[in-house]
């Protein structure tokens, strides 16, 4: 791996949340009984013809705008021809050399293009593996067939699995904010392929790439790309060639299996779809898409920086949409905590959750806001605040009630703390001597004593100040 640089490009298929399918009037629900959401068009019956879904084009324009793409005034659909049982018509209707959106950028990744197409049906393989290899039989559910897809293709401008997974989170948050897709990877409304190659670090050329198909979680994407980078690096170090092929990553075994080699690649015989007119974008369509754009993650990041959040918090709360949305709600409550304090408590909360989504926890934005305010004002200490958060995550409830019930209110003021500090110094005469001599290093012993006595309810700074005054250090 030494001296080798991974180059990664992503192709993301996004199921659009239109009411009806891309080229017919069937609903696009997930989870309906098999083959109940079908019609002559999406079943590819003889004589049926497609009609393009205006809402899908609208969503495509919104995506293009959010990614800063150039929006084509005129784009066309092509037929991509191949045989497979999940492909009712024997071709997919997709955009080819004249897509809806060209170029663009999101965060640190350049966008190559965005185009519209229709999804294939779903094959269900009967048998232990659940995959086609080793299946006893396969059945087709055409409910999904014809669902509108936006395919977002990046330039090969990513360089690590970690970066790819992080950027995908930003993309997912952007799409969710746009409201154009459910972006649910498990249900397949967001699917990602990765093109991966290695090259000597600093080289301007691209090595032979492989394509990693259809990874359906951020974790698998990261693991899959890492596995493929390792596989290619081992080949190169052994002096063996990397072959152009399409691979499947099995998250259970961590292994990569070849689906097809370059020689087996399809000739899709693209040609312009004669059943559809060109998509011509009018000023009204552009205006409507512009009006529909909400605040996007990178705009939120700027707004949060404007609130005084540090760069790390602003980025985290923007790229991770759920956490950011929770923060915004808690900020609305406005119990007086500083935005940065609230941001810290929001990320603290998210970090304790398996789902990473505070909205799915027992903690309400109101509770988090009031907790942050109590800590920020010194009513409870940082340490006691974390104990309160533990309770909130476990059982929900009101922070004030928990503080009262567990007697977690901060112990403060010379009246309450000074006697405890004095006792601490008396119990540790050697430490007191050192402190008196100006060596402040062992002060932690005294603070620890006080914290233990107050069950963490004392403020460390206040304790230090009291020690100094008790010892006459000014």
């Amino acid at each position, binding site marked *: 791996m030494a001296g080798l640089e991974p180059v990664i490009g992503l192709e993301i298929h996004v199921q659009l949340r239109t009411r009806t399918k891309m080229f017919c009037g069937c609903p696009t629900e997930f989870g309906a009984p098999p083959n109940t959401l079908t019609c002559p068009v999406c079943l590819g*019956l*003889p004589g049926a013809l497609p009609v393009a879904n205006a809402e899908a084009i609208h969503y495509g324009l919104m995506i293009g705008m959010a990614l800063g793409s150039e929006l084509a005034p005129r784009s066309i659909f092509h037929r991509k021809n191949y*045989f497979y049982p999940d492909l009712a018509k*024997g071709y997919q209707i997709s955009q080819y050399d004249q897509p809806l959106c060209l170029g663009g950028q999101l965060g640190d990744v350049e966008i190559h293009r965005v185009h519209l197409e229709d999804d294939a049906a779903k094959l269900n393989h009967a048998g232990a593996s659940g995959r086609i290899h080793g299946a006893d039989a396969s059945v087709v559910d055409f409910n999904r067939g014809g669902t509108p897809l936006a395919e977002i293709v990046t330039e090969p401008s990513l360089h690590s699995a970690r970066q790819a997974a992080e950027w995908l989170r930003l993309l997912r948050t952007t799409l969710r904010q746009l409201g154009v897709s459910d972006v649910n990877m498990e249900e397949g409304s967001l699917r990602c392929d990765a093109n991966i190659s290695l090259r000597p670090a600093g080289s301007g050329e691209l090595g032979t790439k492989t394509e990693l198909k259809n990874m359906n979680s951020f974790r698998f994407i990261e693991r899959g790309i890492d596995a493929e980078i390792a596989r290619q690096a081992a080949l190169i170090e052994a002096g063996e060639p990397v072959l152009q092929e399409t691979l499947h990553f099995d998250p259970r075994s961590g292994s990569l299996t070849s689906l097809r080699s370059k020689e087996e690649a399809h000739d899709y*015989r*693209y040609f312009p779809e004669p059943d559809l007119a060109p998509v011509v974008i009018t000023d009204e369509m552009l205006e409507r898409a512009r009006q529909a754009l909400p605040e996007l993650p990178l705009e939120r990041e700027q707004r949060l920086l404007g609130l005084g959040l540090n760069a790390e918090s602003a980025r985290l709360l923007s790229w991770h949409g759920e956490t950011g949305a929770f923060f915004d709600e808690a900020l609305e409550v406005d119990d007086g905590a500083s935005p940065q304090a609230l941001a810290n408590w929001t990320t603290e909360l998210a970090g304790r959750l398996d789902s990473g989504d505070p909205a799915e926890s027992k903690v309400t934005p109101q509770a988090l806001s009031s907790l942050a305010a109590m800590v920020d004002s010194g009513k409870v200490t940082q340490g006691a605040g974390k104990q309160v958060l533990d309770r909130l995550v476990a059982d929900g409830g009101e922070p004030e009630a928990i503080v009262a019930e567990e007697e977690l209110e901060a112990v403060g003021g010379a009246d309450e703390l000074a006697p405890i500090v004095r006792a601490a110094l008396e119990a540790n005469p050697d430490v007191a001597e050192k402190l008196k001599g100006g060596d402040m290093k062992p002060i932690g012993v005294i603070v620890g004593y006080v914290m233990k006595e107050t069950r963490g309810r004392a403020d460390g700074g206040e304790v230090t100040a009291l020690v100094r005054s008790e010892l006459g250090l000014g």
Partner: protein
Amino acid sequence: MSDIGELTAVQAAEAIAGGEFDPADLAAHYHQAAAVDDLNAFTWTPDEPPAPGEGPLGGLPVAVKDLFCTEGIPSQSGSKILEGYRPPYTATAVGNLQQAGASIQGKTNQDEFAMGSSNENSAYGPVLNPWDRTRVPGGSSGGSAAAVAAGSALWALGTDTGGSIRQPAALCGIVGLKPTYGAVSRYGMIAFASSLDQAGPLTRDVRDAALCLRHMAGRDRADATSVGLPEEIELPNAERLDGIRLAVPEEFAGGEGIEPGVLAAFEASLEKAKELGATVESCSLPTAPYALSAYYVLAPAEASSNLARYDGVRYGMRVDEDALVPMYTHTRHDGFGPEVRRRILIGTYALSSGYYDAYYGRAQRVRTLVARELDGVFSQADFIVTPTSPNVAFELGSKTADPLAMYLNDLFTVPFSLAGVPAISIPAGLSEGLPVGLQIAGPAFSENRILQAAHAMEKAIGFDQSPARTAA
């Protein structure tokens, strides 16, 4: 009423509106006529005559080319791969006629997936020409043309991709109209070549063609390429052609490849046109000779994709195998006839990576040039006239071994298909006892003007619409 079978559709509609006879009698007459059809023109007829509908076409039965989807009724497009296939919906063009009161008399035979000029490519056997049962009726709408010519259908629907309405109409001595591309919805027409396919009527006379088109046409939200017609189709009544300028392409005028009898009938029609007040001049369509080559790249290319859906997975024929690829291979090999397989192979080749520009791309450029040249002529002349087909009906089996000779039947019809403009074929007379067609083509959406001109010519030519029945 002497014989209701002698009435044209327009006459029958008027008689029914005037209460002259019970429309059920008309349905019964054609039901019986189809039952005794010995031309193999029909692939399906109902057990009982259809109940008469209500509306301007109320009580008029119409024969429908097999490739129109008709709900619950076999719609096989002349192919074994769709044997017994009964669609769950009805094609818009047929539905429009039903809305106007027409009923489906039966489904008519055709070349498989509309690929052919002789109706010999049907999986359900060839159709015979009522003028001479040893000859073909033309194709691909051969069943529709033969049924109308033989009097076993009042009128019929066909489709035209490169000449599939006009050429069989010519070979059977009837009227066939291919409308402007987009005038009639293609929804529910089992596709051959999507950018060329267009539905139209095959009728006994020009007024019937007008009546049928009036009720078929219209923009359809289910067909993104349909636009309808800018004005309602009127029943033509012109008897003169004063001031009309007819253009004859010099590339076709030399008579090369045209049977002498066809050329003679064509030239006689031009004389009649002059007598009616028209002027006849020659025009130049330098790209037209390449139109046929371009057509036989573009149409198979689209067909290779359109026919991919017949894979044995969801409907139609399936040859069961243990694995997917053998299932596909054997289903499609056994399900498609040789001409369809040939065109799928040609089309697949033409679209293949590395060949696309040389074939499909170049053919598209020819198509654009042909359309541009026709536009140029139509800025100088009202109509372009040609023989519809270079030959009269030929003997069964005489061209099946030579696809290129068969394709030449489309020489005069294909340029107008590529340009998407309307064209009609009307009977121009006989050559050695067999009908010859006169083609009149105009610019896009000039259907009313074409029908008027065709009506004037039809009157002047005075072709007896019934010799097929008297000869039989």
